């Protein structure tokens, strides 16, 4: 008997699979490999070296940009985690007029093209509510943090909402029956149930913020450069393997966090299936 996966045993399909994989990942592989190249020229291999990584850490501006990125990611994650969780709870728990439009609006930052959001923030932060740029670090990053929280909170809300859908209302009733009030039910029963969703949502928000370019490009100023923006400007001046090294670090970080988020959700699903 042939199952759908048995077709993978045929060589044309295997070849096709290999070509898709190569098409997707060879460029990334080349980038990673050449970040270890002992040459100024980006296209000629001259041997293994870590000098570009060393150079990266000597570049004060790049390190500062990386620091900015981490602070922005952390702050926007915290904000979007709180807002997203509250929005998810609101939509899960209550029925009210305008709930359906609100749910649709919640997904809007995900589907609206980033460039539009970027321009919108540019207009917003220059014409309507100018964010004072002369504030001391890290307060001067406020505009970027707000912009990042605005789109990543939608992701958090969706993930937490999905998690809440599997909550068994009888558990809350049981806690109530045993004497718990609303707050204790929330703290002792709801939050433990939401944890996988919260963690996955937070990792998602962190990753999205860390590697966001378009929206950040429109909201950053000369003193508020983030890591992706800095890499972009390095490319404009000169394409050195240092750019490869910086990109490799970014890939490593985001891939790692995404894998962690997926693993947490997968463990959660496996637990529910068991």
């Amino acid at each position, binding site marked *: 008997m042939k199952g759908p996966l048995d077709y993978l045993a045929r060589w044309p399909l295997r070849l096709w699979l290999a070509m898709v994989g190569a098409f997707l990942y060879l460029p990334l592989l080349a980038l990673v490999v050449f970040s270890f190249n002992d040459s100024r020229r980006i296209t000629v291999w001259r041997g293994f070296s870590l000098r570009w990584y060393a150079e990266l850490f000597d570049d004060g501006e790049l390190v500062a940009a990386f620091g900015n990125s981490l602070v922005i990611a952390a702050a926007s994650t915290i904000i979007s985690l709180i807002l997203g969780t509250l929005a998810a709870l609101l939509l899960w728990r209550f029925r009210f007029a305008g709930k359906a439009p609100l749910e649709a609006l919640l997904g809007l930052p995900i589907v609206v093209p980033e460039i539009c959001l970027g321009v919108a923030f540019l207009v917003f932060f220059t014409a309507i509510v100018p964010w004072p740029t002369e504030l001391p670090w890290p307060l001067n990053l406020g505009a970027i943090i707000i912009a990042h929280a605005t789109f990543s909170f939608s992701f958090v809300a969706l993930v937490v909402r999905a998690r809440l859908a599997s909550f068994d209302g009888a*558990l809350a*009733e049981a806690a109530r029956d*045993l*004497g*718990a*009030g609303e707050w204790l039910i929330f703290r002792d029963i709801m939050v433990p149930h939401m944890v996988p969703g919260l963690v996955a949502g937070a990792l998602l928000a962190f990753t999205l913020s860390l590697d966001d370019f378009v929206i950040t490009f429109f909201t950053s100023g000369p003193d508020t450069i983030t890591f992706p923006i800095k890499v972009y400007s390095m490319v404009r001046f000169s394409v050195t393997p240092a750019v490869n090294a910086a990109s490799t670090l970014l890939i490593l970080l985001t891939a790692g966090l995404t894998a962690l988020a997926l693993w947490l959700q997968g463990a959660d699903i496996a*637990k529910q299936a068991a």
Partner: protein
Amino acid sequence: MTKGQPIIRFEGVTKRYGKVVAVDAVDLEVREGEFFALLGPSGCGKTTLLRMLAGFEVPSEGRILIDGQDVTNVPPNKRPVNMVFQNYAVFPHMSVADNVGYGLKVDGVGGAERARRVEEALALVKLDGLGSRRPDQLSGGQRQRVALARALVKRPRVLLLDEPLSALDAKLREAMRTELCQLQAQVGITFVMVTHDQDEALALADRCAVMNRGLLQQVASPSDLYEFPASRFVADFIGSVNMLEGALVVDEPDHAEVAVAGIDLPVFLDHGVTGAAGTTLWLALRPEKIELHKWAPAPPALGDAPQGRNAVAGTITHVAYLGSESLYEVTLPDGQKLKALRSNLTRWDQEDFALGEQVWLAWHACSPAVLLS
């Protein structure tokens, strides 16, 4: 078996959801220390009644009293009742001991005292030593014990059980029945159970309330429900029954006769009915109360129906062999079908009462239950 004073009282309790009346003007008393069952088909309002007792639903009309205190508007977390939920609702992220101790923790019962009472409660439901297990390491039966211990550890005035045995497999259900009975006797707490399973209610409860479409049909002990049903609904819902519609023809203080279509002579009853001649009524005749004979029955014992009464000939048209007994379907000449249950007294009974055999059915003058509605 009569037990103490009323502990729960429903006074004219009605619950409406929009236009649907889930519970309709129920007056009901549950006595201290008894095992009480709310029985009825799904959608009859029994679960709504239980949830109102727990506090999860508020009556649209009427009052609920526990220990003489009006609790109609008291929230669930402030009532002296605890509940065992249908799917147990064991907290998946807490150990067994934390589950059982949760109610005490909420009440502010401190560490050592709490640990002691949790230990006690676990011993009560025979889960000693499993306190550190996680719920996903437990079987369905064990999870139910956790739910029981978790509710009992708070020493409620009343324990509520929502379909407690429905999620267990048949063998385990049987064993848990006995255990629930013993547990109730041991702790002496009033149990109120909701079930759609009549066997469960009859086997466990001291008294049962039968509900249908939001209305209370009858409140009685299991044997009274079975032998003296108050209406056709109750007679039909509890156990199996042959329902004969007839007209009253003779009504004396010491006997009555009812003409039933398809039976030649009127059915003879050994008690008066106190109704006008010609009144339509129903005779509920349980299958096990109908005797099966190969020949016309012999003259009856003293005080029973006169010769030739309460007997009818028919043909066996179906046999369900159940091992210890057999259920026969006998078709009368007019096409009416009666069910008769007969113990398989010898190993050859199956050959004597086979499909297609001509047989006689007979019953005692005291066997049919007379129903006016």
